[in-house]
């Protein structure tokens, strides 16, 4: 047998690997939320010092309109809210946030922010790894094995992992050709008013959702993961220690949630935030009861009118955030 026949499979392996690596290196589409997060991590590099930075999950993403705030004030503001972000992933960004020297960091939280059952996107750990973010010992102790693995993957492992985004992208493109999506495509690059969830859900639909124990679960802070609360505490403490002003927003819920959620559970969350604000000395703004059903798209996300109302309240409000 000719020796070349042993070499040919090796050549095939090398050529296909190189081709794949070239392709995946230029591939930067990780789904709407992953791509947005990737862009946020890049945006940290050219953020003007003294900006107001809104951070949190989809409630911030949908609830804050920085264009309105900038129009009505002299502030520069950025909405870095991201659907699926959990406090652990937020805490991992602390060095990036500190390095940008923001004037204020405004964090939007609700009990749902600390939930790990529905609100989950492990791929964000890989993207953090891609931007050179590593966990310090405090966070390392609280990460799962899978999260640690994603945060410590080497170049080839990351390249292989990223293949999970390829098919959904192309199938999604094909899908959007046959049935145009309702979703706003600019969510990935919009750091001012990135609205993604625009479908207005009806009261019956929302009532039915709240009957689902899995959905109710996310509103109960007692059932949230301890490590996520630790990470939130850690993030705020680190920012404060770096001399950055932190404001925490107790984000609003649809009135239906407040009606159906046990008062004890609501009180537990409010007490948790209050105690934390006293311990870490940050400003806490309670927005929980200030919005009506007409301001929401669903149980947690404000619609355009609600977002405008919330953003406008900053401009006209008595707090120290907006001047």
């Amino acid at each position, binding site marked *: *047998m*000719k020796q070349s*026949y*042993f070499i040919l499979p090796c050549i*095939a392996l090398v050529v296909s690997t190189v081709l794949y690596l070239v*392709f995946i290196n230029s591939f930067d589409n990780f789904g709407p939320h992953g791509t947005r997060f990737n862009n946020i991590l890049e945006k940290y590099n050219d953020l003007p010092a003294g900006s107001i930075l809104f951070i949190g999950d989809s409630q911030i993403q949908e609830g804050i309109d920085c264009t309105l705030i900038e129009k009505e004030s002299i502030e520069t503001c950025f909405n870095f809210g991201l659907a699926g972000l959990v406090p652990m992933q937020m805490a991992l960004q602390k060095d990036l946030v500190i390095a940008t020297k923001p004037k204020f960091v405004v964090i939007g939280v609700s009990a749902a922010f600390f939930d790990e059952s529905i609100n989950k996107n492990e791929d964000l750990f890989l993207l953090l790894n891609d931007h050179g973010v590593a966990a310090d010992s405090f966070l390392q102790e609280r990460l799962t094995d899978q999260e640690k693995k994603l945060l410590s993957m080497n170049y080839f492992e990351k390249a*292989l992992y990223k293949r*999970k985004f390829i098919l959904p992208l192309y199938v999604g493109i094909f899908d959007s050709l046959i049935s145009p999506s309702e979703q706003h495509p600019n969510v990935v690059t919009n750091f001012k008013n990135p609205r993604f969830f625009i479908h207005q859900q009806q009261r019956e639909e929302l009532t039915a959702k709240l009957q689902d124990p899995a959905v109710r679960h996310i509103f109960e802070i007692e059932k949230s993961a301890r490590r996520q609360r630790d990470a939130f505490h850690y993030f705020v403490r680190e920012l404060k220690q770096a001399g950055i002003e932190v404001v925490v927003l107790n984000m609003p819920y649809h009135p239906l949630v407040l009606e159906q959620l046990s008062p004890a559970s609501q009180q537990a969350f409010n007490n948790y935030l209050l105690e934390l604000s006293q311990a870490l000395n940050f400003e806490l703004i309670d927005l929980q009861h200030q919005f009506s059903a007409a301001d929401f798209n669903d149980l947690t996300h404000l619609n355009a009118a609600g977002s405008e109302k919330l953003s406008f309240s900053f401009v006209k409000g008595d707090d120290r955030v907006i001047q």
Partner: protein
Amino acid sequence: MIVLFNSFEFLYFGIFVLLALLIIQSKKYQYLFLLIASYYFYYVSGGSFFLLLFFTSALDFYLAKFIFTASSDRMRKWYIVISLISNLGVLAFFKYTDFAINTFNVIASWFGYQPQIPFLNVILPIGISFFTFQSMSYTLDVYYKKLEPTDSLFRFLLYVSFFPQLVAGPIIRAADFLPQMNKKIVFLEDNFKSGLTLVMWGLVKKVVIADNIAVFVNAFFTDPTQFAGSLAVILGAIAFTIQIYCDFSAYSDIAIGVARMIGFTFMLNFDKPFFSKSIAEFWKRWHISLSTWFRDYLFTPLMGRKFTMTRVYCSVFIVFLVSGLWHGAGWNFVSWGFLHGFFLIVSMSTEKWRYKFNTFIGLTKLPKFHGLLKTMITLYLVVFSLLLFRLYNADFIIYAARKFIFIDFSQFLVQAQALWSQFQVPLLFIIVFIIVHIYTYFKKGFLDQIVQKGSFEWTMYLISMILIMYLFSPTESIQFIYFQF
């Protein structure tokens, strides 16, 4: 840790074995090395159960010798009974003990007793169903005087433990394998090329098609009642049929391909079963090495020398019940076997009547259409039977069977849209499989044509296959389904 064929561990192991066989010049040491490598492979996958593999093989080796040299028929019978009891006993203990305990507890509870015998939680040695059947076929062949026993224990040990087919088949016969060890292992261009071509084809089937479809299959079979209407049930059943075919035939392709690369020829294990025109034909095309095993070592002895239709039906029924049980220790597997036996018996007993009916309505004058109709009906029955194979819960089985038989396509578009939005990628691969499968069926010898091409085209084929795997395989690799059998 099971060494999966689609893992880097197996790639390194395979390269090491190939290089070592190239370096070792002595025929004797080549096979000795293969034996050590095979036992190492099993040790890594199955831990200390390699000792079980060794003892069952060694016992059959000596029993076959005793059968061959026995002075009387009575002694020959004794030896074959010992071989059958030891092999089936080992299989029964490891595979069926907890199933038997559970069945006993349930039946006793029907009569008001609560024995609650605790489970032994016996760990199933990987590949036990395959290597016991392979080893048993040797003693049976010697007993039926189809084969003379080998003098070399280590050749026999290699026959049973040969790593490409050890854990999930195909089930190779000693008469096919042992003579192939008479020659020195020499790498031939054709064998190497066609072997690697088959390996790559198998890998793509497994990691791209089967593993992508698995997402939908797992979601559907966890609770089929979550999916309204018949569309999801039909698609779920089709998806599982494709998944199990791609998974298992891929394992066979890789096993046959690896063996071929080092000069061994194994029988074909799958031959486009979805184009079968009857259940009988399906079993001639699906898991051929197991079907022929049951034919030769169970059906034929059950038939004896007296041919009556009653005997045929009874034998078919027993063979399929045993085949179901072989696939898994669960009543769903037995029911699946029962159903196939039932289909086959109905098909055999109505053959003449169906022919008359088809002639009467003129179907026989349209052979192509008639063939297509038969293929579709066979496929419907096979896909339906696999619902039983995969579902463990009686309520789920009843729900799925009802939706599969009494097709409810109300709100078809809504159902289709909901499924598509949730499972775009798996559904896409179902379509891809159907297209590729039909293409390769009509373009016979598709892989052979690739092998016959020159070096450049062959290298391009390899590059394409690797690239397809890089680009389209899911991030998490999934174990081969037939490992559990």
